């Protein structure tokens, strides 16, 4: 399935190339912004330049991997509206799997490795212990659980209401609030972002773990939340399927 996506992307070669350049530029600009900002202020919510950059890099990691895995979600609306979703439901591959994945973008192969290198280098400069590194990796995986749960919720919502594109954009915007550590937000917004819409746990927490700011208890609780979210989202998906009205004309 992804092979066809690759070919289609190449066919729109120029567009894809420009898009890629755009994303890289945006990343570089924001990094530049962080750099110049912290040159003037020295700290942000108590974090140093390297730490702030690390928060941003981790945000990108979670965001990009989630997008890489779940690109198909962006096509979900047309799938349902055109009635092709019927065909998906009938085929032997799990409909959930097919709706989430299978739309991988070749360009992600270019963006993920450099990001990983950058994370490695920046993380090393923060001098973490073995446990902290372990917590970081574990929490990143947990973040992907949360991201998966979010995406499942989005497409389930989409089956019921046919409103997907906006929901996805809102989700992306919410996660983007995590470009900086959620500590910058005053309460109650910070609370909401940490517990209710767990952007804080998804994006800020792993980086904090690397810096030694999270206890083992915290890690376990996060996992509980992550797995719990996944289970809830599965239930929601099944519920949504019962509400599915085949909308082809």
């Amino acid at each position, binding site marked *: 399935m992804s092979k066809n996506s*690759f*070919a289609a992307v*190449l*066919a729109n*070669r120029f567009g894809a190339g420009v898009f890629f350049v755009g994303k890289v530029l945006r990343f570089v600009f924001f990094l530049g912004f962080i750099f110049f900002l912290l040159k003037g202020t020295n700290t942000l919510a108590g974090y140093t330049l390297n730490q702030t950059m690390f928060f941003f890099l981790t945000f990108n990691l979670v965001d990009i991997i989630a997008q890489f895995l779940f690109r198909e979600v962006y096509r979900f609306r047309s799938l349902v509206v055109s009635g092709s979703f019927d065909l998906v439901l009938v085929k032997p591959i799990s409909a959930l799997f097919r709706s989430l994945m299978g739309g991988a973008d070749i360009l992600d192969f270019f963006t993920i490795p450099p990001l990983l290198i950058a994370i490695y280098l920046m993380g090393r400069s923060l001098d973490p212990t073995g446990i902290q590194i372990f917590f970081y990796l574990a929490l990143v995986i947990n973040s992907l659980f949360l991201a998966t749960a979010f995406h499942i919720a989005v497409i389930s919502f989409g089956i019921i209401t046919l409103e997907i594109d906006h929901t996805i954009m809102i989700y992306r915007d919410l996660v983007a609030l995590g470009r900086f550590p959620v500590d910058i937000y005053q309460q109650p917004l910070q609370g909401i972002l940490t517990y209710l819409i767990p952007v804080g746990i998804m994006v800020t927490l792993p980086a904090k773990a690397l810096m030694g700011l999270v206890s083992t208890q915290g890690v376990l609780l996060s996992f509980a939340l992550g797995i719990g979210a996944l289970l809830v989202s599965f239930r929601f998906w099944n519920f949504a399927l019962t509400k599915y009205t085949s909308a082809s004309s």
Partner: protein
Amino acid sequence: MDRAVLVDHLVKDFEVTQKEVGLVGSVRSLFSPKKKAVRALKSVSFSIMQGELVGFIGPNGAGKTTTLKVLSGLLYPTSGLSQVLGYNPWDRKPDYLKKIALVMGQKNQLWWDLPAIETFELNRAIYEIPKRQYKETLDELVTLLDVGKLLKTQVRRLSLGQRMRLELIAALLHRPEVLFLDEPTIGLDILGQEKIRDFVYDYNRKFQATILLTSHNMEDLINLSRRVIVINEGRIIFDGALDELVNRFAKKKIITVYLNKEIDVKEMENIGKVRKVQFPQVVLSVPRTTAAVAAAEILQNFPVGDLTIEEESIEEIIGKVFKGESPTKSKK
């Protein structure tokens, strides 16, 4: 009477990029895309008098739509003369645009999520139509097309046939002197097609508008125009009275029979030339003048489940025109 449309040695070329197949091909065309020049109109010439209703017919890709687009100012002619109402269409002068209309089968100008009346009001403003004239024209058109109840409904909730009729109104509110219709009946059912044809005929009579209509459906032409221009592969191969075209080239009609029981097909050969046999379907061609009699004979003598009589396809007719006579007016 004046000439409304004058076309002389009109040539139009398009540049087409070849896309290659497969992954490797896609990468290759990234660096050196192959381009090809396609000559859509090969020195076309004709003229149309004011008030004429002319049918422009040819197979898909023949150049009909391209001609209309050049005449309405959308496409830039590669060479040659094109003049409508004394204007050069490519200049797209506002005065010129106020006198013409181009209606293309499935290209919508009505705003999708608003009622048609809103688009009409917008057009009134754009074409600067005086209020009283607008009201008169609107009422006439609405009555002619029977859409009174549909004006305030969101366009997207209407059927294709209803939308087509409203699109026609939107295009005619400014009472154009020259009307270009591109495949106006495409996608419509028989009833819908008839309604559109009747309307075009009435409009031509009532407002003395010059109408140039393209189609690849012979039915449109047979019922509407006195004069036809046949175009094929960018060249005009017939320009004359419809009767002449029909008498000379569309001599046959096609009868398709669906049989209830198997029969010896040879027996049918007495009635007409058997073109195709695929039980339960048998296709014959019979002379135009005796088609009705032939059909009656078939119904009497054979176990028929269903029977249809149709015109020959335009492609077949064109083929005959092309083979028989090609009065092209210029050399390549």
